[in-house]
């Protein structure tokens, strides 16, 4: 009570008050939990929204996996959830495309962008930099509420009569522009676009806030090269977001015009439903350029925070400094820069000039270099470490494996000549689910397990964490590894069934294996959900610095207080990676410990 009241006073700048006044200042339920401007509460809000959306998107994937493993078979559960879209329990083929679309949209934007970056940038930027809060608490609150509103709209779009958006998560026009082409391009698509527009607003407000906070609110001594790699990753992620999301906003806006106001930015020479449309002169390919100008940086918006979190956890739990700190920063910057000049590799076979294709081959393959550096640096950090296998550490190690395993197939897909034959096949699905989906979600799990004590003041259960990790890890490779072979068999993605083609008749066994592992992985997530919610209320109470880590967030009290530190802000004297430093009593030296006379800065 003493410290709590003190902190409260401090935050309000009147330290003389008697601490009994405290109760008069008690925040109401609304200002504490709902319209909070405290970054720690906003982080939790992002996390819980993302968990809900994640469960939803996972359920959708199980629904369409059932159809792929047992095409045309009746599953009563489908009718229970989807009603008229699964008459007699058989999934409708339009609904199949809708499920695929919404699964992708939610996973990429709502779970891995909003959820990952929103949660951990919010939680860690002020805490690891020694700031009392974000630069603007109010904008931060708005950022969440835009995100939340867009989530609600996306969720709601699944219940409209003509079904949700069904043209794939990339919503290429003309398919997405013409309700006559697919029912999902009616009201469902309108809601999708509105939802995404709001999502972008929320994302921009958040990102601008993150950038300003990192630049301006670092505590005394926290130079740029003393920042934990998490912060570097969040900073570059935010910059990528600010530079690329507006382009998606433009793309979305033009699509809204084409759909509703008769413009022809993306439409030309179309004949549909017995009628020639008036629009001419537009180009569907323009949309793809605009979309992927965001879409590719988006991959790194998803991945970089995961890599940042992993860097921190691997160093802490190996009790070693992260290997090649400066090289890691350079890699983050290089990846961030290159991510803006590679978007064309999604479009090799759109009829784009082959020479332009060559340029994108070159830039894309360059990204493999900083990525390789990161992977090797992680592995070297493990070398001669003293590894404690917390569930967070397991997910971090898992991320390195998925990052490498999914990354190498990128070399195939970036090679335009090879892309010709595997473009839009399951080979691509396998590639991006492993390298981006699995890696990013592992980064998110890693962060949740590691910073749970900071989020909720309690520990998650390790044993359940182990069950969760190992089953998820096996499940992920079980689901996505066989997909490479499905792709090499020439099977296109987004097919409702493969029964029309004799050449795919022998794929049924593999699809069964994939769906089996998918169901297994989904069940494994129930273990996580139980652990998460149980620990939130009844988990073991956390100590102040459970992982013996160096970073500043562990110098704050377990109990959350507005303003983070009860007294003065901590002062930083060293980088965050002095683990197992020779000549030191403990195997960690927090950033707040001054350098001794015989020590040099890292």
């Amino acid at each position, binding site marked *: 009570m003493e410290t709590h009241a003190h902190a409260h006073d401090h935050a309000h700048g009147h330290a003389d008050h008697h601490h009994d006044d405290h109760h008069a200042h008690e925040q109401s339920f609304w200002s504490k939990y709902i319209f909070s401007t405290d970054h720690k509460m906003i982080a939790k809000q992002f996390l819980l929204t993302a968990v809900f959306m994640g469960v939803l998107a996972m359920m959708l994937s199980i629904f369409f996996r059932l159809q792929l493993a047992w095409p*045309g078979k009746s599953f009563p559960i489908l009718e*229970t959830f989807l009603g008229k879209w699964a008459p007699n329990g058989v999934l409708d*083929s339009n609904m199949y495309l809708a499920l695929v679309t919404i699964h992708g949209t939610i996973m990429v934007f709502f779970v891995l962008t909003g959820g990952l970056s929103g949660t951990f940038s919010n939680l860690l930027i002020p805490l690891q930099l020694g700031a009392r809060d974000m630069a603007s608490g109010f904008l931060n609150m708005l950022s969440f509420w835009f995100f939340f509103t867009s989530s609600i709209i996306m969720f709601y779009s699944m219940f409209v009569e003509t079904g949700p958006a069904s043209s794939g998560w990339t919503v*290429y026009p003309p*398919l997405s522009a013409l309700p006559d082409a*697919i029912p999902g391009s009616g009201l469902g698509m309108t809601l999708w676009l509105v939802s995404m527009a709001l999502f972008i607003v929320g994302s921009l407000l958040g990102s601008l806030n993150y950038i300003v906070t990192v630049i301006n609110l670092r505590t005394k001594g926290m130079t740029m090269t003393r920042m934990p790699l998490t912060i570097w990753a969040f900073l570059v992620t935010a910059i990528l977001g600010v530079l690329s999301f507006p382009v998606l906003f433009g793309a979305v806006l033009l699509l809204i015009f084409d759909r509703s106001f008769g413009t022809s930015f993306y*439409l*030309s020479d*179309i*004949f549909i439903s017995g009628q020639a449309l008036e629009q001419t002169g537009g*180009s*569907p*390919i323009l949309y793809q350029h605009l979309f992927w100008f965001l879409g590719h940086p988006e991959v790194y918006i998803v991945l970089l925070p995961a890599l940042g979190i992993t860097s921190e956890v691997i160093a802490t739990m190996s*009790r070693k*400094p992260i*290997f*090649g700190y400066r090289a890691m920063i350079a890699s983050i910057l290089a990846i961030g820069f290159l991510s803006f000049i590679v978007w064309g590799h999604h479009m090799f*076979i759109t*009829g784009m000039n082959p020479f332009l*294709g060559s340029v994108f081959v070159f830039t894309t393959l360059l990204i493999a*270099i900083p990525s*390789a550096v990161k992977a090797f*640096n992680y*592995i*070297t950090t*493990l070398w*001669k*470490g*003293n590894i404690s*296998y*917390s569930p967070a550490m397991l997910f971090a190690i898992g991320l390195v494996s998925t990052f490498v395993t999914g990354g*190498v197939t990128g*070399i*195939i897909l970036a090679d335009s*000549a*090879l892309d*010709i*034959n595997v*473009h839009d096949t399951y080979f691509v699905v396998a590639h991006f689910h492993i390298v981006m989906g699995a890696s990013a979600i592992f980064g998110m799990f890693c962060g949740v397990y590691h910073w749970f004590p900071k989020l909720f003041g309690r*520990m998650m259960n*390790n044993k359940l964490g*182990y069950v969760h990790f190992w089953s998820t890890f*096996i499940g992920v490779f079980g689901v996505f*590894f*066989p997909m490479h*072979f499905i792709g*090499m*068999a020439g099977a*296109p993605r*987004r*097919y*409702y069934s493969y029964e029309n*083609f*004799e050449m795919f008749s022998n794929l049924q066994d*593999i699809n069964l294996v994939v769906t089996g592992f998918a169901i297994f992985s989904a069940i494994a997530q129930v273990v996580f959900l*139980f652990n998460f919610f149980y620990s939130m209320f009844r988990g*073991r109470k956390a100590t102040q610095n459970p*992982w013996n880590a160096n970073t500043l967030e562990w110098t704050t009290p377990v109990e959350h207080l507005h303003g983070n530190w009860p007294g003065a802000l901590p002062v930083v004297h060293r980088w965050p*990676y002095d683990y197992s430093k020779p000549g030191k009593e403990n*195997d960690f030296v927090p950033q707040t410990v001054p350098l001794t006379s015989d020590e040099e800065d890292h």
Partner: protein
Amino acid sequence: MMYLVIGVTLLAIRAFTQLATVMQLSNALKGGEQEEVSDKDNRLNSKLMMAFLIFFMGFFVWQIMEYSEVILPEAASAHGKDIDTLWDFNMAIIVLVFVLVNCVLFYFASKYRNRPGTRATFFAHNNKLEMVWTIIPAIVLSVIIIYGLQTWNHITAPVTEKDPVKIELYAKQFDWTARYAGKDGAFGKTDYRLITDINPLALDTTDGNSNDDVITKGEFHLPVGREASFEFRSRDVIHSAYMPHFRAQMNCVPGMKTYFHFKPTITTAEMRKKLNKETFDYVLLCNKICGQTHFGMKMVIVVESEADYQKWLATQKTFGAKDAPAAAPADTTKPKMAVN
């Protein structure tokens, strides 16, 4: 039923909650854990790291043995063979990297478990090492880029053959139509406003080049050993003409024409013999999400000798012939729908 499921779920959650609490209390009674991660757990997970590596690599090898039969057969086109060679070269590199890196990763992750009383080695950076693993990937990637781009430039170079088969693939929801340029070697002009039931390809009837154009549905034929020069058009949304056996693919985009060309090298009959499968056919499928029956857009491709091809072409009606437009065989592309 629904209530039963909900009831059982709630009970299960309750039971698990109790169980977890009991476990936690018993741990606390035993004096709790001094460390956040116990030595026992470290030993267990260290072993699991190696176990996983063995499982992972075993699974990988098992899949190669089990699933290699589903992979596409050898390329049936000239450039396709180049692609396959490039594929094998790249695959060799990435499989090597995949196996090596995962082995080292899990080996380290297993070996360097926390041992009470010991300390990790302080090893923050080493410029030489970092240069090595920046430069080696850079060199390997340069080779990959150069080899890849040579192949790409070769594939996308203009048609060199003097007399290629000129053929257009026209996509719409949800079928394909093929059009040959005919004797004059030129396609008739098109305008999407001209589409009618009897002129589904929107040919301009006033253009003389249209009259000898041959239009087919269901299947189209190509002569072996002669370059086929494709043009692609779409009526409504983006489709993608994917001919996996020939390693050929190009999007069909409304409002613009796209191009691709390849030379078939193996006839359908030869491929049937090679695969020992009488029912084998080359197919064209749609590989860009295009709507409800995207999964049913199919056309059979028949590759045969030049003589057989000419014979077949002669039997096809031209656009200008009486009772045009075209001899449309029964629609074999109608997709099987799920039985409701």
